């Protein structure tokens, strides 16, 4: 009975992914759900590492955690009332059945008991699921880059992002864009306290009164009827 380290790690990762995913679909707190979703994604990245698929792992972390989860988390935080909202889901049962069906299908296709279908005779399906993918789509010879991937592709990728002769400038631009857009999003979405709104109204009223006074002194005589000036000042 030999249990390898890989199998232990796999079971741990599977527990994390399944646990986090279950939490996501059962929790009533959107924010915690979003955080747990990120954890589930991280577990999947762990599977890729286990399979020695470094690029997939990096892409998983960057796209699913770095982009999608963060996007969900920020939209929950920036949308007023969303954090306190208790979501209800009337379709939970149907989705559960669909998910179970999908699981069965995946298990049949990729699982230990491999399901093989011969589609060569079936009219529509045989064209849809051709084994040979044509290289020429729509008479266009799409060019493929078929050279082997270098051993150091992950470190090459990382270095390319900070190399002045490669992609440093786009990388920096994205960093600035994220900062600026986040500041702007907060500027637009932030709910102001009543005291702030009041202070702003007083500020506007003071400015308007000062303008009315400036106009009067410029004219020499009251250019505006005094009642009108008073209403402006009160405003």
């Amino acid at each position, binding site marked *: 009975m030999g249990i390898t380290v890989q199998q232990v790690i796999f079971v741990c990762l599977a527990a994390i992914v399944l646990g986090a995913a279950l939490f996501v679909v059962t929790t009533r707190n959107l924010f915690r759900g979003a955080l747990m979703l990120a954890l589930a994604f991280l577990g999947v990245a762990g599977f890729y590492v286990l399979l020695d698929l470094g690029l997939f792992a990096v892409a998983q972390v960057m796209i699913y955690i770095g982009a999608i989860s963060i996007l969900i988390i920020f939209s929950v935080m920036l949308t007023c009332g969303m954090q306190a909202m208790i979501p209800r889901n009337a379709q939970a049962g149907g989705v559960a059945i669909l998910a179970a069906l999908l699981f069965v299908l995946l298990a049949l296709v990729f699982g230990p008991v491999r399901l093989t279908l011969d589609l060569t005779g079936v009219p529509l399906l045989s064209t849809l699921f051709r084994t040979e993918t044509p290289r020429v789509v729509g008479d266009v010879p799409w*060019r493929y880059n078929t050279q082997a991937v270098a051993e150091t592709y992950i470190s090459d990728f990382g270095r390319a992002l900070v190399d002045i002769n490669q992609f440093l400038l786009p990388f920096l631009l994205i960093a*600035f864009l994220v900062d600026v857009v986040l500041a702007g999003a907060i500027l637009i979405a932030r709910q102001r306290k009543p005291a702030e709104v009041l202070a702003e109204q007083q500020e506007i009223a003071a400015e308007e009164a000062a303008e009315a006074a400036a106009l009067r002194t410029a004219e020499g005589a009251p250019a505006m009827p005094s009642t009108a000036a008073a209403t402006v000042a009160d405003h």
Partner: protein
Amino acid sequence: MGGFTEVNLAEFLGILPEILVLLWATLLLALDLFLPGGIPRRSMSLLSAGGLLIVALVTVLMRPAEPQVILGGMVRNDLFLTVFRLIFLLAAALTCLVSVDFRPLRAGSEYYVLVMFAAVAMSLMVGADNILMLYLATESASFTLYLLAGVQRGDRLSAEAGLKYFVFGAVTSTTMLFGLSLFFGLSGGQLSYKAIASALSQPELRLPFTLAALLVLVGFAFKTSAVPFQFWAPDVYQGAPSPVAGFISTASKAAGFGILLRFFFNAMPPGVSEASLSWVWLMQPIAILTMTVGSLLAVVQSNVKRMLAYSSVAQAGYVFVGVTAMALGALNRAEALAAVIFYLATYMLTNIVAFAVLGVVEQRVGGSDFQHFNGLARRAPYLALGMAASMLSLLGAPPMVGFAAKVIIFREAIGVDLVPLVAIGIVNVLISVAYYLNVVRAMYVERAETESPLFVPSTLGSVVMIVAVGLVVLTFASEPFWGLALEAARAFLRS
């Protein structure tokens, strides 16, 4: 582990203006955060504008003698970029100056940082020398402008403008990205414009390259608000705070033309392959449609802000006349490009003034319909004078600089036998008399219910007057600016 390729820090000097603006913006934001009470609104506006103007000076001093491609082929630093940088920096500085007096905005430090970042992103758009940088810079500018359009808090129209601009922008930019990805795939994984141009020569790729060019053109047409992608303009301009509308209608449009020229003339140069015929042929219909639809719809507007939006569509049409002349004529290409640059620069000055005055009227008279301009000449004579100068310049009436700009564009178009196009252009100028002079008539002929003087903020008033005087002076002192535009055009074509 292999080391880095040779690092030449001097290459960063090529984007020094952008670096300086970002540093200044970051510094102001930090000061506003840490100083007790923050930076006062008015100082913030002056500091941002002052910083942008100093950087404009640095840009002039640091102008490259020879075109250079820097930072791993990301940016092409040449005189063309220098001129566009000046347009963006000046537009941003003027926008910062007039924003502080637009009271409903209550612009805090973040607003000015957004304007400054937009200027940086637009410079990088025009500087981009490959499709990755082109897309990233375009998105950076667009996202900043979506935020600026919706920045007026508690105003439903402004929020609607921001959302509408975002939705339209997202759709067109995805279309453009699809086109760019086709360019990437068809050229065998090339990013730079020049490598794409050399992949064009394969005759069997003519059709897919044509499709890709059309998809990319959708993105450019959105940025320049060319017909049929002008639908967003009136709603966004009307809802956005007036200074922002002025910025979007000038700087963003100039950036749109900048990337259009850069991309099409470098990646798909006319006359090199059959694939580039696709966009060359489309320029003339776009010019005709954009001019005509813009001016016809501007005539029927009762709101000056919407009128200015359609007018800016028509103005883009006149610029497309210059682009058409440039694409079709091989001999006077530099002159035609210089005409386009000159037109964009003068249009920037003119339209920002128009939107600044509009902002005052909107806020202090209570609306932006034509009737709100009634009697403005008696209520705020200098402001009315500035608005009249701007309207006459947009119309292209002598002695305003808009006249010179239009004459030069039409002259270059006639130079390549585009007489019908110029005839349509002149008809549209005649139509535009109706709506531009309608504003002047309201200000000088009509009487308002109250003739009491209007308070004109001092900063805004002086900006309007200085630029208005500049619009006349530029006509008679246009020689050095025309020379600079011509030099920039020659640097653009020397690639």
